[in-house]
């Protein structure tokens, strides 16, 4: 078998990517499937998801309620047809995961248990203690090993999409171990590269979350959608940004300010700790500004208190939180409150894709966090993203598998020429580059701190304008980078440089999209425009890449049976 040519090629080995690969294999067992990941798949950032996966699983629940919660949570920026399809598929996917061996936590009668989660009106989050993402990722990865037709390229770093006549023909990649560049062609390509949290300094996201797929698509002419919609999770550990799961509050934990007060009564009185993430992160920020936060060596923080839950519940439901507290903070959460503060967590925006993951480019699909299929709108509800990876990973896999019959394979000649050009760009622009005086890490850190300052929980015109100006400066500095490492073998300085380029493109799209949306909706909170403006902005921001910077246009949201209303909890 030719290891560089496939029917369907998947970029990314996290939950969405692996789910897509299995869906292709099950839709048509004869198809050749490639899966490229810049790390071993089980290292993908899905592994850090904790709380669980939302789906209508109990008799008291309904598709309509899950759909409404999601749409209200999105501040009405979700596409309602997409949400309706999602809520119907999610329960099947949770059962599928169970059949594949996911160790979902159980009720006393042995059925799959659900827990409450923020913004959900009823209990519908299936979970595997507080390591749901870890167990789901290892379950799908290990299951994928039984399909011999899924051929993996582990530790291969994608640098560019191969595009001819507006059709995606595959990718160019660096085999990290050898340093060799090569082309991998495919009739259909699915991007499932995850998030971009590393454009911020204070983030829950791992080192690999650098927006690669978003930047690859964007550069190739596929627009990015709603990039201003960045989720700040209320509970990250100061200094590291390590995620403390929302399930801590789902299980009954309290958020307390420095008066020992459950301050959320002033912000989300009917939901309290189970309010949506955007509102709680703003509430915490307001409390900090008004002097009711604790002061620590790594900034202001609140207390997240689970002491009243008792050791038995904590060990059964939140064992990883106890471990994280002990190992990374030096506290026992059975006896001590957990210090937390809002932290960049998730990108609602992403590659503009439709309900089946199809993008505007023929042969190119996207799924999971790197995609924006219209599910999450302006604010994602906790535990919808693991379900999203399953539902839309599978959907993209099926759609791609069905489409390949109608697509011809790429010819060898243009591919060779494109590979030659891209090799020249990577080697000339980075490896063999002469001169240069800018360190990658310094530009990256400056970008990250600028994003924290300019595009955080609250935004202003001044702050965002300053951010766009600074980002222009970082891009100029990026042209002058210097690379210490001239070796071909496992050159992670080279990949870090390319990642920085990806991140800068994504950051620019975030800043410009945020500057242009002169309203407050979901996670996008403008101090200078505190109200939602449905007349003008009940629309998706569509950012197109141009040499001069993003060109923005707007597209109507797909409405349905839920009329936009004021969003109160």
């Amino acid at each position: 078998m030719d290891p560089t040519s496939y029917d369907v090629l998947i970029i990314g080995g996290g939950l969405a990517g692996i789910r897509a690969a299995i869906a292709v294999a099950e839709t048509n067992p004869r198809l050749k499937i490639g899966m490229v990941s810049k790390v071993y798949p089980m290292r993908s950032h899905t592994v850090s998801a904790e709380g669980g996966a939302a789906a209508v699983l109990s008799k008291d629940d309904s598709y309509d309620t899950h759909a409404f919660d999601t749409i209200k949570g999105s501040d009405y920026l979700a596409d309602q047809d997409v949400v309706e399809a999602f809520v119907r598929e999610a329960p099947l996917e949770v059962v599928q995961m169970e059949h594949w061996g996911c160790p979902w936590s159980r009720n006393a009668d042995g059925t799959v248990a659900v827990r409450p989660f923020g913004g959900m009106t009823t209990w519908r989050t299936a979970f595997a203690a507080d390591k749901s993402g870890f167990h789901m990722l290892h379950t799908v990865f290990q299951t994928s090993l039984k399909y011999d037709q899924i051929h993996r390229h582990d530790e291969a770093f994608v640098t560019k999409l191969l595009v001819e006549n507006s059709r995606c023909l595959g990718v160019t990649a660096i085999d990290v171990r050898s340093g060799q560049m090569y082309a991998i062609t495919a009739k259909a390509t699915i991007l499932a590269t995850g998030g971009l949290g590393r454009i911020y300094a204070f983030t829950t996201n791992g080192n690999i979350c650098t927006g690669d797929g978003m930047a690859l698509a964007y550069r190739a002419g596929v627009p990015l959608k709603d990039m201003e919609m960045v989720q700040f999770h209320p509970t990250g550990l100061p200094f590291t940004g390590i995620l403390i799961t929302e399930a801590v509050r789902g299980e009954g934990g309290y958020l307390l300010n420095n008066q020992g007060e459950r301050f959320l009564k002033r912000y989300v009185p009917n939901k309290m700790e189970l309010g949506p993430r955007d509102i709680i992160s703003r509430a915490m920020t307001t409390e900090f500004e008004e002097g009711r936060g604790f002061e620590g060596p790594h900034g202001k923080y609140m207390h997240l208190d689970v002491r009243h839950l008792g050791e038995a519940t904590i060990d059964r439901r939140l064992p990883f939180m106890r471990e994280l507290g002990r190992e990374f903070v030096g506290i026992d959460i059975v006896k001590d409150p957990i210090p937390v503060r809002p932290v960049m967590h998730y990108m609602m925006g992403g590659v503009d894709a439709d309900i089946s993951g199809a993008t505007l480019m023929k042969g190119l699909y996207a799924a999971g966090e790197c995609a924006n299929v219209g599910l999450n709108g302006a604010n994602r509800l906790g535990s919808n993203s693991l379900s999203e990876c399953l539902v839309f990973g599978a959907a993209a896999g099926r759609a791609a598998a069905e489409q390949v019959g109608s697509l011809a394979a790429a010819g060898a000649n243009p591919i060779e020429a494109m590979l030659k050009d891209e090799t020249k760009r990577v080697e000339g622009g980075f490896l063999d580059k002469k001169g240069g005086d800018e360190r990658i890490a310094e530009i990256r850190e400056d970008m990250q701190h600028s994003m924290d300052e300019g595009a955080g929980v609250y935004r202003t015109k001044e702050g965002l304008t300053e951010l766009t100006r600074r980002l222009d400066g970082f891009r100029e500095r990026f042209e002058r980078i210097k690379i210490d490492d001239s070796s071909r073998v496992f050159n992670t300085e080279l990949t870090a440089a390319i990642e920085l380029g990806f991140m800068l493109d994504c950051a620019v799209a975030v800043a410009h999209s945020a500057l242009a949306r002169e309203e407050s909706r979901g996670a996008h909170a403008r101090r200078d425009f505190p109200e939602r403006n449905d007349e003008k902005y009940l629309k998706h921001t569509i950012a197109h890449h141009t040499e001069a910077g993003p060109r923005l246009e707007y597209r109507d949201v797909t409405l349905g049976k839920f009329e936009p209303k004021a969003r109160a909890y």
Partner: protein
Amino acid sequence: MTATKRITIKATRFDPDKDEKPRLQTYEIPFSDDSMVVLDALNYIKGHVDGSLSYRWSCRMGICGSCGMMVDGVPKLTCNAFLRDYWPRPITVEPLNNFPVIRDLVIDMDDFMHKLKAIKPWVIRKQPVPLGGGAFVQTTAQIDEFRQFSQCINCMLCYAACPVYGLNNEFLGPAAIALARRYNVDSRDEGPGQRLPVLADAEGVWECSFVGECSVVCPKGVDPAKAIQQTKLDTTMRFVLPFGNRD
């Protein structure tokens, strides 16, 4: 203000294109925050001193399994090895023992990836189970049978600690056997008959001399040594008593 403390890191450097053998390179870096871990020190070196130092990392919260290295001779996740536990002594950081080194602190773990596949780490059913029938019923007590073995993050610390693997890398090894056990004792699985031949093979569980170092170094509380001993019992039942207890 007091001057920032400093700490010395000695890290393995090896580039197969240039070096005949690995050497240690010494870096002295600021130890500016008590919360710093060995991984932060490596990141400081890579970012600000020497961009050519190569190592793997991602989640920095002890769950992705990327950043295992030998820290002062002990296999550890560098994301939760705190500098304060070593300072003011220098810290030596080397690639995990018992693996070929690709470069610097990066090991070649393809061997494990093949072994993982060999033990068939997926739910095996004799007949396909339709989704429409819903989820299996599985009690918490049944999950407790395999729970600890399902916590393996594939970080390879147990292989680095295993003296048997060090002598014979054909040995299936602690994590792969623990993961086989994880499926063998899962109430939803009907595949032990397919896994036990691999486990009972000459390079399977019987290679283990029960040193137990694997369980000591596991950062996730998995007890591979227990899995190995339990599996020895299973394989005995199946092959020594071939007419007893077969499914």
